[in-house]
């Protein structure tokens, strides 16, 4: 046993002496964050020593960091010592006992989105023992993937079944030192998804957390790692369009993508956190670090996201374009209504020769919503012939909302080309009246115009998702036009 591991054992042992043993059977640990807590989490998850150690390094680093502040977000202070950092698969005791206990507003929204009845219960967090149809779906799903050699499982399972892949790739895209929230996540993450697509394999189906029974139990510090080996292809769908009930206020997820030579990863998100009540109270703070590493030649990573905003969203899916000729793409629709705030964008870091990136950002603001696009295109001296095209369009509905655009470009190679286009428009009275005069209601007209505005992003989504995304926008903009 290595010196390190021995030390660890001792430390773990010491942890127990402090009375944690009695806690082990309970679902939730007491609030607070220190080294003992991190060891406890790692121990509960029966993790190998390298992982425990990695978590501890992250924690020690996090303690030296300051919480970031942003000009365009108003964030109520978060008390990190009052959060409970480990909650076993969400306790049935926490959730509503039946649909009758669920906020009727939420159910109404599910109905509008066309979510099947049994799924509504699941999404609303109703404690139901049997997990409906999705069990059988999940099983056939697993068999087909296994036949193709694709690994798709909860992160914690992958730690047990594929520790060498975890050790090799975890933190290789988002190091534990990366930023305040990613570092926190590295120390305390509980679960998430793991995907490995072997060499030359085209994943036979869209991978979706929707089909994963435990998808809703991953907690507030989710960790996802997707590895596409040489010449492989995978399309991954995150989240689902129905609003998710969640009692966690803070979400700090990390997503790492690794694309090796000629590999292509398409990552789509259609997400709609339960925004809390009409005033946005109880909404979620969503701080996510998503980064893709185009590590091999001609690798390709594409992010597509449709977000209808939590109370506060802060995320910048990024691409590190390392491999020669690699391609990074970012397509985004962000909507804010009522008092929501969104601060989203992307970073494209061009390192390799002839790397290309495309950014298409569509921001929709309604009510008192504030929508910020923040983008960075960075072209390093090594990136000969790199090219970027950025398009940022904002659509305003009503006079009290705002759109802000901050495109930053740092080009350190004279052979690079960077193009930027931006526009701000309003849904004009003429457009609205034109639709009305054809018998279409104002609400349908707005949805139609907004969908039209978002078209270039929607077309990047897998078919079924595109439909869900449109429904989602319709619901989220409800009441935006009188």
């Amino acid at each position, binding site marked *: 046993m290595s010196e390190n591991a021995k030390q660890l054992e001792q430390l773990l042992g010491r942890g127990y002496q402090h009375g944690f043993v009695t806690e082990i059977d309970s679902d939730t640990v007491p609030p607070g964050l220190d080294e003992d807590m991190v060891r406890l989490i790692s121990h509960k998850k029966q993790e190998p020593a390298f992982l425990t150690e990695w978590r501890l390094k992250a924690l020690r680093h996090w303690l030296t960091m300051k919480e970031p502040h942003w000009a365009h977000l108003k964030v109520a202070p978060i008390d990190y010592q009052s959060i409970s950092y480990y909650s076993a698969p969400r306790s049935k005791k926490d959730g509503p006992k039946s649909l009758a206990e669920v906020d009727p507003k939420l159910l109404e929204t599910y109905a509008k989105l066309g979510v099947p009845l049994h799924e509504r219960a699941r999404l609303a967090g109703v404690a139901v023992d049997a997990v409906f149809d999705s069990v059988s779906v999940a099983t056939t799903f697993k068999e087909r993937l296994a036949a193709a050699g694709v690994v798709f499982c909860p992160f914690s399972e992958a730690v047990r079944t594929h520790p060498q892949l975890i050790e090799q790739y975890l933190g290789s895209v988002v190091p534990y030192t990366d930023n305040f929230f990613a570092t926190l996540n590295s120390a305390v993450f509980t679960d998430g998804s793991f995907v490995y697509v072997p060499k030359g394999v085209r994943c036979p189906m869209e991978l979706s957390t929707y089909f994963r029974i435990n998808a809703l139990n991953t907690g507030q510090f989710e960790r996802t790692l997707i590895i596409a080996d040489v010449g492989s292809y995978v399309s991954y769908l995150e989240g689902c369009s129905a609003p998710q009930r969640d009692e966690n206020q803070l979400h700090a997820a990390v997503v790492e993508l690794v694309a090796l030579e000629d590999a292509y990863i398409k990552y789509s998100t259609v997400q709609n956190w339960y925004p809390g009540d009409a005033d946005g109270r109880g909404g979620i703070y969503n701080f996510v670090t998503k980064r893709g590493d185009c590590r091999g030649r001609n690798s390709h990573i594409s992010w597509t996201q449709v977000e209808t905003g939590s109370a506060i969203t802060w995320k910048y899916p990024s691409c590190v374009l390392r491999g020669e000729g690699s391609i990074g793409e970012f397509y985004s629709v962000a909507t804010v209504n009522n008092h929501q705030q969104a601060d989203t964008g992307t970073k494209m870091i061009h390192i390799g020769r002839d790397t290309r990136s495309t950014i298409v950002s569509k921001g929709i603001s309604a009510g008192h919503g504030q929508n910020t696009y923040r983008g960075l295109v960075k072209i390093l001296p090594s990136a000969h012939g790199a090219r970027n095209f950025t398009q940022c369009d904002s659509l305003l509905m009503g006079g009290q909302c705002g759109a802000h655009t901050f495109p930053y470009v740092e080009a350190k190679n004279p052979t690079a080309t960077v193009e930027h286009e931006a526009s701000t428009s309003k849904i004009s009275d003429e457009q609205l*009246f*034109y*639709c009305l*005069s*054809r*018998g279409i209601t104002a609400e349908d007209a707005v949805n139609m115009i907004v*969908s*039209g505005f978002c078209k270039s992003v929607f077309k990047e989504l897998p078919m079924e998702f595109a439909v869900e995304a449109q429904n989602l926008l319709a619901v989220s903009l409800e009441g935006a036009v009188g």
Partner: protein
Amino acid sequence: MGARTAMLSIEDLQARVDGKPILNGLTLEVGAGEVHAIMGPNGSGKSTLAYVLAGRPGYEVTGGRVLFEGRDLITLAPEERARAGLFLGFQYPVEIPGVNNVYLLKAAVNAARKARGQPEVDAFEVLGLVREKMALMRMEDSFLSRGVNEGFSGGEKKRNEILQMLVLEPRLAILDETDSGLDIDALKVVAAGVNSQRSPERACVLVTHYQRLLEYVAPDFVHVLVRGRIAKSGDRSLALELERRGYDWVAGEAA
């Protein structure tokens, strides 16, 4: 105007835009099966009349009465007027980027069907109908996949208005200068479109500056609008006279 039943009956209509009175006691009756042409100098209130009838927000009715098939039109919301069978062909059709032409038509067709308690039709059926009418309007298939009026030329926009009219089959169509900016061939196509709609149950109001359209679509009545009022009405020959003499004499007569 005798025993015929008026489809549209406008009585002493007064309307303001941005506080400025534009229609000043306009009276007009349009019977089923009739085609009326409305002519008149720039700024006389022709488009304002069309907008008021279609219910454009901001066009405030301050007096008078409008009955459409016996219903008080002014109290209806614009979308209800459309579903009741009123269609406005815009003088300047607006572009709606990214919203597919067929998609808009499908929404419009289904809104009307829903209002009549009929089942909705799917995209496939709408597409079939649209294709048929497009052939009549000599529009290329590529228009199907384009956004509403997005990047259309002036003439193409006008043709698209008529296409929408043909698909929606309104009881009353108000076409605001649909002939302006059309080349000779396009004018014939548009006229053929309008004529294909003529029937004893349906009526049409053509706002135009030119006698030329009326050569192809023979109107039953011609009216001259001056300063927000019908200053003179007549038959087809009035249009010819206006072409020769201009509007000044009408304005003089009316004053």
